[in-house]
């Protein structure tokens, strides 16, 4: 398999590997894929609640070089964007940036899914924060 230089670079020097505190109210965690498929990505964002800007992003991936590169690239792109801007990231952007061959396109799709899952988790936390104590009682 011929890899693009960018995929190799991300593989050898992955950016933003690690974990954020998933219980923090301003951290969104997305976990997508399955071990049976050979691809699992965990992507986390830390959002500044006031500005809505993603201050930090981390990832961990079980998968091939293209999957690792796609999720590493995603965390690079997420930092500094607002949550709404982050939702604009398309898997095709990742394919183009990393020159992924057709057989590896699904890795970029998974990365896009991971971004959306992390944002979804963050937003879910925000909306449960907004609920009043009385509402929270009945929900629990």
């Amino acid at each position, binding site marked *: 398999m011929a890899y693009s230089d960018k995929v*190799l670079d991300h593989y050898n020097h992955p950016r933003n590997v690690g974990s954020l505190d998933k219980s923090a109210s301003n951290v969104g965690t997305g976990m*997508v894929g399955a071990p049976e498929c050979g691809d*699992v990505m965990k992507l986390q964002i830390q959002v500044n609640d006031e500005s809505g800007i993603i201050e930090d992003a981390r990832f961990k991936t079980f998968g091939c070089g293209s999957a690792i590169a796609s999720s590493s690239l995603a965390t690079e792109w997420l930092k500094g964007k607002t949550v709404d801007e982050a939702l604009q990231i398309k898997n095709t952007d990742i394919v183009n940036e990393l020159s992924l061959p057709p057989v590896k396109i699904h890795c970029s799709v998974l990365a896009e*899914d991971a971004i959306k899952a992390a944002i979804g988790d963050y937003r879910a936390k925000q909306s449960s924060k907004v609920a009043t104590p009385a509402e929270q009682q009945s929900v629990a």
Partner: protein
Amino acid sequence: MCRERGVLFHTDGVQAIGKVPVNVNTDNIDIMSITGHKLYGPKGVGALYVRRRSPRVQITAQMDGGGHERGMRSGTLNVPGIVGLGEACAIARREMPEEMKRMRYLRDKLKSRLEAGLDEVFINGSMEHRLPQNLNMSFLYVEGESLLMGINDVAVSSGSACTSATLEPSYVLKALGLGDDLAHSSIRFGIGRFNTEEEIDYVADKVIDVVRKLRELSPLYEMAKEGIDLSKVQWAAH
């Protein structure tokens, strides 16, 4: 089993020939494929053993023409290739007892070094019914293709779906009873006649190093260290 029922048995012997003793009579082989390049002979030449007696095997001609090779395969023979194949077989027969010992020693050394340097590694298939130079191991929480990328100056293969054009994991490993997750984490090492002990140590060191690095990247390893039972997790599969 086939013999008892009058069923012809063909085996693809390309991995076995020249590496372990094969006897078409005691092994009840009626037809067998052989290739030169798997026993250090020339590439582009092979042979098909076709049993003549008890039972007599008759095969349909692969190519029609001048009736060469008793009508089984017409066409001018590849003489240089055939001579090379013959010589490779002669050498293999001569070297086999010593070579089997050496291959087994190197393979067992690689296995011990990897098992000593890493936890959660598994051997796929029987150690007893295995070629002395073959080793197939799974490295839990690490995907096969990403491991191959890290040891890219070592020629090995993986049963991972990501390494196949069809994105399916190895059907052989599945037949051995491996779950998909272990199939995706598998590496097949084949030791060769010209491999040295230094190379075995080099490969062991490199594999251990890359597996450790990839486990740091792995969400599955992280979850396992936290005590989570991965078999109970609900995955958001794509």
